[in-house]
């Protein structure tokens, strides 16, 4: 018999098991995937060059338009993975099993990263390939092997993964599923748009580095003045994620369960 002891690898396995043994994970990952692919195919199939508002949109961002909604679903998966434990009381069982607490948060972050990154990248590759079937001969025709395309898809995936991790951090901070989801939608998608409403350039520039806008910028194949460049956007997302998860970890350690 192996020795009974807590190890980081075992805690990670436990969190992996927990994620897949509740239905909501399956339902929401399916919903996010189907939505992204479905929207990508639908708008590609109905695309007519030089007509409508979408003609000016970046070709990769255009295909990944469904992520506007599925990024929220993915964040909800992450919020649920921790705030759901507070809502149900499961957190007491979890923290009695792992009384140092922090490994639980890092393991959840690891599991969310692995699942969201893998699922999103696969979804994006399918969406891209399927959408392009309808875009032959248009200005949005692209091939995976075109310069920058694969990189943009991977960058977009990284952006959505960061957003999910921010959702995890918010869920851990607020310990409430509705609170976490509200904070995510408000902070990540609404707040940057509010900032842009002000007639000051500095606020418009700052909004580019807010998580939602930074992740959106990563989906563009071509640089645009609307978004931060890839490097700074990735850096901003990393800093946001680190700061929110770090604060969540600090409070997890200090607060009573």
């Amino acid at each position, binding site marked *: 018999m192996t020795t*009974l002891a807590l190890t980081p690898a075992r805690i990670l396995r*436990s969190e992996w*098991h927990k994620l897949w043994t509740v239905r909501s994970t399956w339902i929401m990952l399916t919903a996010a995937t189907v939505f992204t692919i479905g929207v990508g195919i639908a708008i590609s199939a109905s695309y007519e060059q030089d007509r409508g508002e979408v003609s000016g949109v970046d070709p990769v961002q255009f295909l990944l338009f469904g992520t506007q909604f599925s990024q929220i679903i993915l964040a909800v998966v992450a919020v649920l993975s921790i705030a759901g434990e507070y809502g149900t009381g499961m*957190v*007491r*069982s979890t*923290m*009695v099993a*792992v*009384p140092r607490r922090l490994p639980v948060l890092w393991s959840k972050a690891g599991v969310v990263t692995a699942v969201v990154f893998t699922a999103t990248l696969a979804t994006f590759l399918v969406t891209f390939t399927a959408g392009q079937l309808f875009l032959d001969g248009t200005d949005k025709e692209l091939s995976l092997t075109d310069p920058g395309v694969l990189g943009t898809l991977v960058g977009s995936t990284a952006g959505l993964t960061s957003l999910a991790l921010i959702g995890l951090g918010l869920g851990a901070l607020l310990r409430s599923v509705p609170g976490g989801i509200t904070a995510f939608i408000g902070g990540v998608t609404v707040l940057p748009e509010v900032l842009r409403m002000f007639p000051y350039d500095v606020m418009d520039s700052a909004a580019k580095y807010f998580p939602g806008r930074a992740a959106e910028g990563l989906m563009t194949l071509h640089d645009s003045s609307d978004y931060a460049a890839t490097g700074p956007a990735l850096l901003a997302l990393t800093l946001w994620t680190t700061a929110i998860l770090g604060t969540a970890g600090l409070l997890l350690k200090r607060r009573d369960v």
Partner: protein
Amino acid sequence: MRVTVIPGYYTLHLISRRRPTPPAPARPTIEDMITASELTKRYGGKPAKYAVSDLTFTVRPGTVTGFLGPNGAGKSTTMRMILGLDAPTRGTATVGNHAYADHPAPLHEVGALLEARSVHPGRTAHHHLVALALTHGIPRSRVDHVLDLTGLTDVAGRRVKGFSLGMGQRLGIAAALLGDPATVILDEPVNGLDPEGVLWIRNLLKSLAAEGRTVFVSSHLMSEMAVTAEHLIIIGRGRLLADTTVDTFVRESGAGTIKVVTPEAGLLTQLLAAPPVDVTSSTPGILEISGTDAEHIGRTAAAHGIPLFELTPHAASLEEAFMDLTRDSLEYAAHLEPA
């Protein structure tokens, strides 16, 4: 409706790696003791409220220790501090001389049943236990074993959301026993259990203690603890009221009154009435005897050919003694007399 049969009613055998045989008289060892030292938990607000204040006690292995107090006395808070869920404002709580969180395999050290539902309702009982087992590398066979032990094998694949209160308690106990712990901490384990379940818990606790484990179990029912525990720690409003054995508590509280109905009341009184035994009678033929036990009275009567029509230990008065002790410390007292 299906009736769940609990296997091994009186023959509970846990996989015991380090405590294979019951120690004849339990030898208290520092390794498995629970120690609270000036344990204090203060909640903010005005005025600041002390859930627990200056609580000092030890819980020894090999016996069942009852943790008694009215609702709101601070029992759950104390247990949460022992398990590291709540940080004490002052003082320390240790298990086996270490803070709970400092053990390399916490679930092997302490198994805990906290407030009834500490489970995700959407997960099956089996998956819930597997998730906890994975953190420590506890084998799947042990998960099946504790499911069997708690009579949950047939419902292991069902989601916890459909469980009755009693099934939820059983799942909590299964989780507590998962790591084959040296110490077991159970918060109000008989809550929501039917009489069969109460009996099951009682025997389970005794057998765990007989295996040499430390068993610390809270209750607000003196009558339940009187038949389960050997040692008692009684608190009220977060303060220690008594740290004693059940026998001592019964003797000192005068709760051990025994009602005897006999046609030879005068003779029996003569035979028994000598300190510490006290015999009183308010109705001819009926004696109220304290300071001894039913066995002694019965044997004395038999030895002298005295017929006994009734020999009844007065359990209710034990509850009264507990209420006397905690009356001043009730958090929410009902006032029966008009103000």
